[in-house]
């Protein structure tokens, strides 16, 4: 019997073709290397339908695919265990929401040159993240799973569960290798793992000394009355032993006697540090355990302990090759992440570009100290200004000078309809295919990278500020509901606007890595123009969220909705242009060769 199947009943149950976990693992390994043949697959065109519901669904689709930023708390529906999502039929969260904006959208006039038909048609086929089937787990669920595996192995190998825990920790939870090695030479395995060679389980001894003849502890050089020792007779006072073990509980590895290779067992750990301490060690070794299970992924959000089991892991490779982003949402907090990159949902940038970009940022972060602080001095009067919202359109409180956070240039020079700052600059800065090799790794290319990195991280910082703003505004409106009796539906526009803002900001942020890996072509110029327009729209909407007075917010409902409409239209323009960019294959190979260090 393949040992992994011992613990993977759940995995077996969903694989329709009866093949076991191993299939998944093999495929995942291939995935690491096989990025050569990237093609953006033609998606099915969504049928153009004149029904009203259709439009609502499109709108909903964009929103439901946009709740990507960690920590957002805007009415994300709680993820249901094992809920099956499929592309095209998005989960209908907040119908009332959609109605309120959808209706007003239809009622308003638009002058963006795009018909609503175009908007509808593109929105469904362009969003390139694909929800995966998944189950969520808590730490305790996993501990149960670990114990179950230990029980089974203990029956098979005819040794105590304590021993199994030690052995598995020693083998980094590779139960297959443990079984093989143990069956071949149990004595050697026991010795290597620091267990006594006969399988009798000797627990350590706790000794109490009389006051008249205390124990002199080597570690603290003090006279003590209670001690602990394993079968090796290396004896230390319980204070020192406790401290020693405590320090190692979070390291997830077997704990050895301070002076030799003999391993402390579960009962020793509980004896020394108190009941339940060994559970802490088990929990800290869970990281290695989860890494063994290919379909299990830790939520990458900072400080989140959520674990997700991807039920259709075998589809990940194809999705990634199609330029789709396979994403899941970790349990309670609604964190959305890509299971291929193990990074926040990075739509619209495909996984390959994301992985390269992240690696590049990591590699360059040491040499390039581009630390973006949250304070800046006004370029005119040098008053220090704190950036307290996501908007990059700054107005100095002292001299009323308006400037751009990114380039510190006069905001007015950016033009009212044109957000110049996203542009790559002069033609000679752009790397073309012909001279690419010659000037690679020169100052110019670093400058080019920094330009994009700067834009990327400015929007990353802005995202956090946007999120903070949005949540404040939301609670303000909630207060208003209570005080002035505005209906819940009436007030929903603010939550919708927040979603649109964050979605637009995410799209904008991840469009820069994409542009970075593109050659200079007329298409890239167009892309940068639509990017610039989106940036303009996002900053404008972000600025709206700086309004603090609830009454004014309600008053400006129409402006919020108008701004949202502009963001959505321009976001779609970016997505459609991005699709063309990917199809035109002007992307240099570099973007698709994964560096080994990505893992």
């Amino acid at each position, binding site marked *: 019997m393949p040992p992994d199947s011992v613990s993977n009943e759940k995995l077996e149950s969903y694989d329709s073709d009866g093949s076991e976990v191993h299939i998944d693992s093999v495929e995942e390994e291939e995935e690491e290397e096989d990025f050569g043949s990237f093609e953006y697959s033609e998606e099915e065109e969504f049928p153009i339908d004149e029904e009203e519901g259709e439009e609502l669904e499109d709108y909903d689709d964009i929103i439901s695919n946009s709740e990507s930023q960690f920590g957002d708390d805007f009415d994300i529906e709680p993820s249901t265990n094992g809920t099956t999502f499929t592309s095209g039929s998005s989960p209908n969260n907040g119908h009332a929401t959609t109605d309120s904006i959808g209706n007003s959208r239809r009622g308003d006039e638009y002058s963006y040159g795009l018909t609503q038909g175009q908007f509808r048609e593109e929105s469904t086929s362009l969003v390139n993240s694909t929800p995966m089937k998944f189950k969520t787990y808590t730490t305790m669920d996993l501990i149960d799973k670990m114990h179950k595996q230990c029980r089974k192995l203990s029956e098979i190998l005819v040794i105590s569960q304590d021993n199994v825990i030690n052995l598995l920790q020693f083998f980094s939870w590779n139960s297959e290798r443990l079984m093989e090695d143990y069956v071949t030479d149990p004595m050697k395995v026991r010795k290597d793992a620091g267990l006594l060679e006969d399988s009798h389980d000797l627990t350590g001894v706790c000794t109490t000394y009389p006051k008249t003849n205390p124990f002199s502890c*080597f*570690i*603290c*050089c*003090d006279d003590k009355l209670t001690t602990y020792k394993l079968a090796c007779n*290396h004896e230390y006072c319980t204070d*020192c032993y406790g*401290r*020693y073990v405590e*320090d190692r509980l979070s390291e997830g590895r077997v704990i050895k006697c*301070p*002076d030799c290779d003999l391993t402390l067992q579960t009962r020793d750990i509980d004896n020394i540090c108190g009941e339940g301490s060994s559970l802490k060690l088990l929990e800290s070794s869970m990281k290695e355990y989860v890494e063994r299970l290919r379909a299990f992924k830790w939520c990458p959000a900072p400080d989140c302990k959520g674990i997700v089991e991807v039920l259709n892991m075998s589809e990940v490779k194809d999705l990634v090759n199609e330029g789709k982003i396979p994403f899941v949402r970790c349990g309670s907090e609604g964190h959305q992440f890509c299971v291929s990159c193990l990074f926040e949902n990075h739509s619209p940038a495909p996984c390959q570009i994301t992985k390269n970009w992240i690696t590049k940022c990591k590699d360059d972060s040491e040499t390039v100290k581009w630390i973006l602080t949250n304070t800046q001095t006004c370029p005119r009067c040098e008053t220090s200004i704190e950036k307290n919202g996501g908007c990059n359109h700054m107005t100095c409180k002292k001299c009323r000078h308006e400037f751009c956070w990114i380039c510190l240039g006069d905001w007015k020079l950016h033009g009212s309809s044109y957000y110049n700052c996203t542009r790559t600059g002069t033609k000679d800065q752009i790397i073309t295919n012909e001279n690419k090799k010659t000037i690679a790794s020169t100052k110019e290319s670093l400058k080019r990278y920094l330009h994009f990195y700067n834009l990327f991280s400015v929007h990353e910082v802005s995202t956090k500020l946007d999120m903070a703003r949005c949540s404040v505004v939301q609670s303000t409106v909630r207060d208003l509901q209570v005080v002035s009796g505005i209906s819940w539906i009436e007030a929903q526009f603010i939550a919708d606007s927040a979603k649109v803002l964050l979605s637009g900001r995410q799209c904008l942020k991840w469009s820069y890595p994409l542009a970075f890996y593109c050659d200079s072509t007329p298409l890239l110029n167009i892309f940068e123009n639509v990017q610039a327009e989106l940036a303009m729209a996002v900053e404008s909407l972000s600025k709206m969220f700086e309004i603090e007075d609830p009454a004014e917010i309600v008053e400006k409902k129409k402006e919020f909705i108008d701004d949202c409409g502009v963001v959505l239209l321009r976001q779609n323009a970016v997505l459609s242009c991005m699709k063309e960019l990917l199809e035109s294959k002007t992307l240099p190979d570099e973007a698709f060769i994964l560096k080994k260090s990505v893992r």
Partner: protein
Amino acid sequence: MSRVKRILKELEDVQKDTSASITLVLVSESDLSHLTGTFLGPPDTPYANGRFQVDIHIPNEYPFKPPQMKFDTKVYHPNISSVTGAICLDILKDAWTPILTLKSSLISLQSLLQSPEPSDPQDAEVAKHYLSDLAGFQKTAKYWTEIYASADAGKKNGGSDSSKDGDDAKLYGIDEATVGNFQNMGFDRAKIIEVLRRLGFKKVESGEPRTENKVIEELLK
């Protein structure tokens, strides 16, 4: 406080040992957390006859956390930074356990000098030298021992004094004739040595125009 007792006991134990291959003293009588240790270079190595001084800081969590040690004496060794004296040794990091002592740590440093671990280097330049040209490495290490760790160098405490031509090249194991060649082309001596170190060349044969051009290219920047 047990930490104080432990440190005092360790000091006493080392001072009782009269063989004097290892010494341990407080830097200032009032501060138990800052010590200086010394030990003799192992015989039959490039470090023989040298006395190496180590700066020791003892953290508050001692002996549950390892002491922080770095070489005060300049040492030419793959696992010791030739610039800062920082040490790459497992027992001073993860492998530390509270039954190890300052004395046993110093003995471990002594055996580190005896058996370098170039696969896990602290100083990449030195490690490369060790792996590519062992004899050349040993020559340089011995030279460093003589000028930095010998009995009379001890008083100067490792102050680098390379005013004399030849010393600076020798210090980094760089071939004097190679430096001379580039000097004849009109380049500055210090710059030549800096570039050769940066590129990792100890010697450039006149029959290797490609290597030579690479050095010249760097020198012209």
